[in-house]
């Protein structure tokens, strides 16, 4: 698909759309909402064109665009999608209109700024997923922090400023070291272009010494692990999620966390395979701790939104475990689980936001017996909870099954410990569900709550339909991702010199010509 500008359009359309919003008067709230929604829906429709043009059984980058950008050092404007990033882009374009609809009524202050932030965020996130140049990737990676920072800090709840500052400082701490690592990698390879660096590594044109590889891996991994977030780097997440407005939480959980796992899959594994293998046991242990710890902490939360936030720590632990099991099936499952988590947790946050709009609290004990006044919301909440807990026929099951099945082949004990997390996730979700929706209505205020209106039903039905489709029609996803996930393992191959080095371990290898 050379010569197509689809990815450029997808990346910059939301950004350009903000200009339209700037032309409206700031107090013209209704039109600001409508136009922002129209832009994001149009963006979603455009992104569906990706599906049509995407060649399923190819591991190559598609819709590639390559232009010179900065001559020295050589930096290119290089875009492309493959099976790994395709659905993440679609997830972003799907969740943005959802996030907008979910906060249609709940945002009344500074509406224009809110929707501008959401659109800028969408541009930034899509840019991260389609960039194939390290510099360009970093640019989008950092730029997208600013709108998120404003979303949390301006439209969030009571402790929003603390949460916003914590969020941005944590993320920057990781990413600035990643920048140093990227420039170092450039010094070694002479290129910022990901496919080019990859080729040089695979063909042995550039050889990283073991120490270099370990350090580079660590710098990249730290940035991604903070973003994921991997235990024990997760402490920013409960604050950010809880304090963010609904749309912020949806985007944060839905797509921003995926940038971390995406980065691991795109950079850490294929660029630094030896280091990845050496770090894998430690990473897996942290992932398993995250799975169980996240679930246990979620169980004892009194705040519904915090509960969902901690469940993210647990679910993302599965994804990281799947990635570091070094098994095609598990990686496939990890990728699938990334999408699942985006949809299911996004839907949970939307539902929690709906409760908040009605009662202005997230505390579980303020609710109780809500199934009576809110039957529709209750039904969808149950559906989404079950999907998140991994009920067969729904999306969560597929991802978790693939991860565990793939991991089990190599590491029986990892898979066994991780499986505890599945049981626990059913416990905390269903227990919370029971306390919020079942039984007698405990508070009089809750008797008169309105059930979901038409706008809310549209959002819920769209998400539920996707959850169901991902549960039963998973092949339509996996057949597009399979080639690329297998390709990751091809890219992790290194020529003979590497194996010699790996055997020597501590002593440096005899330097072949061209070693840097």
């Amino acid at each position, binding site marked *: 698909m050379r010569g197509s500008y689809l990815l450029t359009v997808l990346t910059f359309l939301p950004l350009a759309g903000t200009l339209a919003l700037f032309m409206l008067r700031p107090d013209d709230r209704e039109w600001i909402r409508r136009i922002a929604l129209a832009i994001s829906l149009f963006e979603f429709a455009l992104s569906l064109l990706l599906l049509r043009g995407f060649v399923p059984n190819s591991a190559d980058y598609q819709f590639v665009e390559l232009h010179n950008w900065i001559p020295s050092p050589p930096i290119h404007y290089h875009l492309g999608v493959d099976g790994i990033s395709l659905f993440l882009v679609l997830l972003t374009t799907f969740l943005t209109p959802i996030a907008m609809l979910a906060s249609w009524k709940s945002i009344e202050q500074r509406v224009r700024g809110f929707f501008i932030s959401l659109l800028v965020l969408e541009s930034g996130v899509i840019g991260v997923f389609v960039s194939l140049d390290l510099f360009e990737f*970093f640019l989008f990676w950092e730029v997208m922090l600013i709108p998120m920072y404003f979303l949390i800090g*301006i439209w969030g709840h009571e402790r929003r400023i603390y949460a916003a500052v914590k969020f941005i400082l944590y993320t920057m701490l990781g990413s*600035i070291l990643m920048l*140093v690592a990227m420039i170092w990698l*450039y010094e070694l390879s002479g290129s910022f272009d990901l496919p080019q660096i990859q080729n040089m590594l695979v063909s042995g044109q550039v050889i990283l010494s073991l120490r270099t590889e370990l350090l580079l891996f660590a710098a990249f991994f730290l940035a991604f692990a903070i973003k994921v977030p991997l235990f024990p780097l997760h402490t920013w997440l409960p604050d950010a999620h809880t304090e963010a407005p609904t749309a912020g939480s949806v985007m944060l959980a839905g797509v921003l966390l995926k940038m971390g796992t995406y980065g691991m899959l795109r950079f850490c594994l294929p660029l630094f395979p030896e280091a990845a293998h050496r770090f894998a046991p430690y990473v897996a242990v942290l992932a398993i701790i995250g799975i169980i710890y996240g679930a246990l902490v979620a169980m004892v939360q009194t705040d519904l939104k915090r509960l969902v936030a901690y469940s993210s720590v647990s679910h993302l632990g599965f994804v990281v475990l799947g990635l570091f099991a070094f098994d095609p099936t598990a990686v496939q499952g990890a990728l699938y689980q990334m999408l699942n988590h985006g949809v299911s947790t996004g839907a949970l946050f939307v539902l929690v936001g709906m409760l908040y709009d009605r009662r202005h609290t997230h505390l579980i004990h303020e609710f109780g017996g809500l199934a009576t006044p809110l039957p529709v919301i209750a039904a969808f909440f149950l559906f989404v909870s079950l999907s998140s807990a991994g009920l067969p026929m729904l999306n969560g099951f597929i991802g978790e099954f693939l991860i565990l099945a793939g991991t089990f082949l190599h590491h029986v004990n990892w898979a066994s410990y991780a499986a505890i997390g599945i049981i626990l996730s059913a416990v905390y979700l269903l227990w919370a569900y029971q306390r919020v929706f079942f039984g007698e209505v405990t508070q009089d205020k809750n008797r008169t709550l309105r059930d979901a209106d038409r706008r809310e039903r549209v959002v819920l039905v769209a998400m539920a339909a996707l959850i169901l489709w991902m549960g039963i029609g998973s092949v339509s996803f996996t057949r597009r991702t399979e080639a690329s996930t297998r390709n990751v393992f091809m890219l992790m191959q290194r020529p003979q010199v590497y194996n010699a080095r790996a055997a020597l371990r501590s002593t440096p290898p005899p330097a072949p010509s061209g070693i840097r």
Partner: protein
Amino acid sequence: MFPPREDILRLMPEIILSLSGILLMLIEPLLTRARRNVLVSLAALGSGLALVSTIYPAMLPGTAFSGLLRIDGFSVFVHVVVEAVAFLVIIGSADYLDREHIQHGEYYALILFATVGMCVMSSAAELMTAFVGLETSSISTYILASYRRDVPRSNESALKYFLLGSFATAFFLYGIALVYGATGTTQLARMTFPTTAGGERLLNLGLGLMLVGLAFKVAAAPFQLWTPDVYEGAPAPITALMASGPKAAAFALLLRILATVAAAGTFWFWALWISAALTMFVGNLAAIAQHNVKRMLAYSSISHAGYILVALAAAAASDQVELGVAAVLYYLAVYALMKLGAFILVSQLSGESERHMDIDDFRGLAMRQPVAAACFALFLLSLLGLPVTAGFLGKFYIFHAALASRLIWLAVLLAINTIIAAFYYLRVIVVMYMREPNQTWPPVPMPWAVTFVLSIAAAGTFYLGLFPGRVMALATQAALSLPGR
């Protein structure tokens, strides 16, 4: 003997600047109080013409005045930076001076004279010439710092600046004397071998003293103590000038010595390394504790001197100086733009006699004056070094130079400092965007002159952040035009 015609043309910007300065002082008595705005126009015209006339030195590279000056791509690059700074500061000052009732011709004349000094510093190929340039620029800025005569803090600022600055120039001068004693010349290009016995030690001592003198001027730790007080007390537009112009010129002189004198590269390296690390930490850690925005920006400019020193250390460490030198030059241009924008904006927002300089006075600025707040946020994010802004690319090139010279730990320290800096830059943004306004005073008007300066700074911040190619190519050419060790 009258100098040849080319030499006069090579000196065109300096000549135009000096003549306009003299003219300003001559016609000021002829103007009534109401016609004072002629002064601004004349000063802006003078600096603008000087900027345009830089085309002459650009087209006539070579040594001039029997080897006193060396006109090359490097000096032209710095010329353009300091002249543009002068031009923007002059335009940005007009309304400030009216507001403070200190509209006088000599203010502009002094800015122009200071600029002449900086220009000479950037092209000096001989140490006494460099010294004359340094003094011309320093003495003019001492006076400018005290320009709010009635304000005690302004006087304190000038006195501190003058006393400590004099020390610094004395160090520099003594250094020149020792270097002359060691090598028998003050010409940089001929300073290769010590000619006398024991000359090596003498040369190193002299170079060390020169480094101290210039480190004072660029506010590098441990010689940065004067900066916050001086920056805080001086009129805000002059702070903008001091933070961008003289600093650029002093760095230019450092670079030229570093690139030309072989001994400097080896002898200065560790001094630069340590000073860079120290300056970054001192500036950033102290900035966190500040409540006064001007003071915070002063500390932030110390930390930025530290970032530039990282690139300087990279240049000293490597055989190919050009990567480090180009990074410094690019950063100087970027830094001048964003710092100037920030100080000019603050000078306007703070209101009469700079009353509202406290960080709390910026509460809810985004609600009251969204455009000004967005502008300030842009400059702050650029100072922080976030992508899409010029500050990011500037820092990127510094990282690049540092890693190319294998200064990995210095690069890591720079990275850590970026995070520390995020703390206080973001705090201002928090205050502007996330807190409710509590002020009772009406929105501050933005006169067109200030708007003009801010738009240029903001546009430049974006341009240099997105399309560095052309300017970086010029910076690289400039770096390559240095004579080399």
